[in-house]
């Protein structure tokens, strides 16, 4: 029997009268790297905000690592890591001070050893006492990953993680995601509008269009159906529709 790290049943969200997410039925198996593709405004961030408990659903249910996101929101939060798009930190504080704060909020009483371990895992040592305000976009993104995995969450949510990164930053982040999945067994839910990102990183793929999940399959099956990059791109645009 497959265990699901993420499971939603009719999960819905409205902003006033506008439907941001139509009833979503989605299961992401434990250990997967799931890529949710879609144009800007398709409902990707709304989906992640619901699953990370930042938004309260207006309908349906969902569980993350076995915890209901409404009835047991704190339980769900204890099992997730989250990297929002364009992540920011307390610029006046050092890297270590920022991470220490988030570690303690995650219930790690003496976090320094864990911080060192995580920074080592991300090949990001030697910056502990530098102020985050002076960091480049790529460095901030690595800090973002570090704060998200400090408590070794079984499920990690990444919202447009490569947005604004240079090619080197994209490659570093991609390697970190794959290693996290392979070495720590972390289930990863990644939002992106970049097709290439999904094909290089993910094990399963979903496409959301105007708030509705219109495709969900394994990457292998999807590539079996569309073996060339051009065929896959055409299929993506056919499925996801034109960008707004």
């Amino acid at each position: 029997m497959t265990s699901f790290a993420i499971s939603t049943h009719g999960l819905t969200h409205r902003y006033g009268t506008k439907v941001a997410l139509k009833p979503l039925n989605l299961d992401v198996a434990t250990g997967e790297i799931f890529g949710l593709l879609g144009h800007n405004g398709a409902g990707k961030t709304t989906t992640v905000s619901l699953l990370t408990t930042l938004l309260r659903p207006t309908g349906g249910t969902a569980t993350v690592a076995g915890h209901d996101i409404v009835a047991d929101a704190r339980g769900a939060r204890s099992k997730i890591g989250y990297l929002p798009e364009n992540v920011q930190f307390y610029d006046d504080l050092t890297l270590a001070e920022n991470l220490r704060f988030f570690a303690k909020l995650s219930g790690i009483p003496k976090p320094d050893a864990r911080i060192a371990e995580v920074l080592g895992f991300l090949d990001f040592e030697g910056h502990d006492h530098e102020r985050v305000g002076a960091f480049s976009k790529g460095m901030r993104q690595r800090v973002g990953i570090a704060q998200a995995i400090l408590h070794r969450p079984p499920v990690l949510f990444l919202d447009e993680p490569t947005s604004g990164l240079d090619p080197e930053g994209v490659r570093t982040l991609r390697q970190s995601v794959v290693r996290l999945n392979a070495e720590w067994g972390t289930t990863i839910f990644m939002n992106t509008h970049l097709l290439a990102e999904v094909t290089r990183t993910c094990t399963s793929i979903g496409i959301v269009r105007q708030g509705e999940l219109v495709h969900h399959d394994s990457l292998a099956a999807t590539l079996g159906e569309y073996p060339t990059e051009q065929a896959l791109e055409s299929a993506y645009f056919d499925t996801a529709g034109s960008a707004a």
Partner: protein
Amino acid sequence: MGVVARHELLASRRNRAPQLLVGMFVGMVAVSSFIGWLTQTTVSGIYGQVLADGLTTQPNPFVDVVPLFFARNTVIYVVMIGTLMAAALGVQSALRDRKATVADLVLTRPVPVRALLAGRMIGLGALLAVVIAVSSVISWVSISVITGSALGVDGSLRLAAFGLLTWLLLLGFAALGVLGGLYVTRETSALLAPFVTWAVIAFVLPQLGTAARPVSLLNPVASVPQTSGVFHAVSYVTVPLSITEHFKTTSSAILEGSSGGFPLASLAAVAAFTAVLVVAVVVTSPSRLSGEAGE
């Protein structure tokens, strides 16, 4: 809560808010003491001249002045400047998380939102306590230097009580600032909202109260107590809300004593003001911390 409170102190220290506050309070205490010393020197000088000329047989008016007289101007500075600074500190604290996307990171941690907000208020309270403690020590030293002898136990306790009252008032204004930062979308408006509220509390309401008793403007004619009519109705509403006036009344009783008994109602008004605002901060909805995250 302790984690958030310590973080609040660290983050505030890094952007130099406490240093600025300490500098400002020490400046206020120093100016207050200087004005007190100048007044004493000037009046005593004139008194000496008048006495030498045989124009008076009255005693020197400064002979019976209590040492804490020299701190009385601090009361006005706390109302005029301290409260504004406390509100700005509160706004800054709330906006720090909202301006970045840090709030989203914090809200996905397994900590109740009320504990986060209570921790923030505890941090701000601790910061204000440190600032007021430092300025109280400076005030104690200044008064002791001016009067030529160390402030006694009674005077020291009164000074400590005044510090506590000041902390209570400033915590209320800090909470007002936090609410501005949480509820108002734009940064400029977030600063403006508590400042407007401050202006209403510090100026408009007391003015309305005074205008409602026009005879009180004609000093030294004592105002006639009103028990009915428009003036009475206006006073009935504005007086309890004139928090800074209550602060001044209570401060005066603490520093210089009160002939008509301690103004417990005024103290209760200041305490209620702070309690209501702190509770309002703690029960704020999580959505106000980050705003709804739409695409």
